[in-house]
């Protein structure tokens, strides 16, 4: 019955005391007459009772230690980086310049020519995700012909799946996982399904 579904939706909030008066009365009256919902309500009540705050023990000096750890990390981040940390971005930039130069010499549209190769789309997405480019140029959007959300979701699904199937690099996988932070729950579930499909 429809009313039973509504009551079941209300029950968790009924037991946490977050229902308004009229909804509360509706639940109370219905429970008197409906044995199935009454049984369901016992289970929900028990669950809500179990969901009580669990004290977390925090060492008295944790706050002071945390301040030191954070300051150390911030201090390390502010220190000039060694040459090896510059190496990857510098080599990446040189590679891009070579590709652009090559295409300029051939007198064709730079991005469309470059992106017409599937591998280069992957490379572009890799570089974008790893922060080489702050945003995607408009002509790339035109080329890919997706709206932004489609691009993010479908690219993510494909990329995570392909990265998983082709490498065992946890670091690389984590990069893509970071990108799921702004997906809706529904999109995130789709990403999970896509990965499962790729594995199976």
């Amino acid at each position, binding site marked *: 019955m429809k009313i039973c579904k509504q009551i079941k939706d209300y029950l968790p909030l009924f037991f946490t005391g977050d229902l308004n008066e009229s909804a509360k009365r509706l639940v109370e009256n219905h429970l008197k007459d409906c044995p199935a919902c009454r049984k369901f309500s*016992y289970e929900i009540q028990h669950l809500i009772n*179990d969901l009580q705050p669990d004290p977390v023990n925090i060492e008295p000096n944790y706050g002071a230690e945390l301040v030191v750890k954070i300051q150390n990390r911030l201090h390390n981040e502010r220190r000039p980086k060694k040459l090896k940390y510059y190496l990857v971005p510098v080599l990446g930039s040189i590679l891009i310049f070579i590709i652009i130069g090559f295409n300029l010499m051939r007198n064709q549209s730079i991005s469309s020519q470059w992106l017409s190769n599937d591998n280069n789309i992957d490379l572009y997405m890799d570089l974008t995700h790893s922060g080489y480019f702050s945003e995607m140029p408009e002509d790339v959007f035109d080329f890919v012909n997706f709206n932004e959300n489609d691009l993010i979701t479908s690219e993510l699904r494909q990329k995570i799946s392909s990265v998983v199937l082709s490498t065992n690099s946890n670091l690389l996988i984590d990069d893509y*996982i970071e990108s799921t932070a702004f997906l809706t729950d529904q999109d995130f579930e789709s990403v999970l399904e896509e990965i499962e499909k790729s594995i199976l």
Partner: protein
Amino acid sequence: MAKQNVNHPVYDEQAFNNLVRENHQRIYGLFRRMVGSQAEADDLTQETFIKVYKNLPKFRQESSIQTWIYRIAINQGLNYLRRMKIRQTLGLELADSAAEPDEFQSNQSNRNLLRRAIAKLPPRQQMVVILRSFQELSFKEIAAVLNITENAAKVNFSHAVKNLREIFLKMGVTYENL
């Protein structure tokens, strides 16, 4: 780009350190309830405050700084939960590792079962349950930190509790003896 507000109340290092001391219990407590392990909770707490530090110049004082910090922590937490879900799907992580109470101060087996069941919920539902039941936030506060409506927070909680019941049934836990 956000303009740096050098007159910001917590812009200097000493003020930032005070901010960490004043807020660390709530943030660490949230992560401890979410991940179970002290080391991971500590990492997430550090990450959160580093993000806070880096984004302080962008803080527009539209909400209280506590709410703003909490929001950063929750995003950090949601990201962590999603990471765990994906890693579990990939087989890189044990299915219940997010809920393993390795050093947790609890000897109640049903508490552990509850943690394992919560870890199976979708990330946002997990977060709402933890915030409402363990962190004792009101739905209004949950709505503010998750940037959703109060009604959406209630609906998420209701779904989460009903899903928990289903998960328990699948785990063979029932409340028939009540």
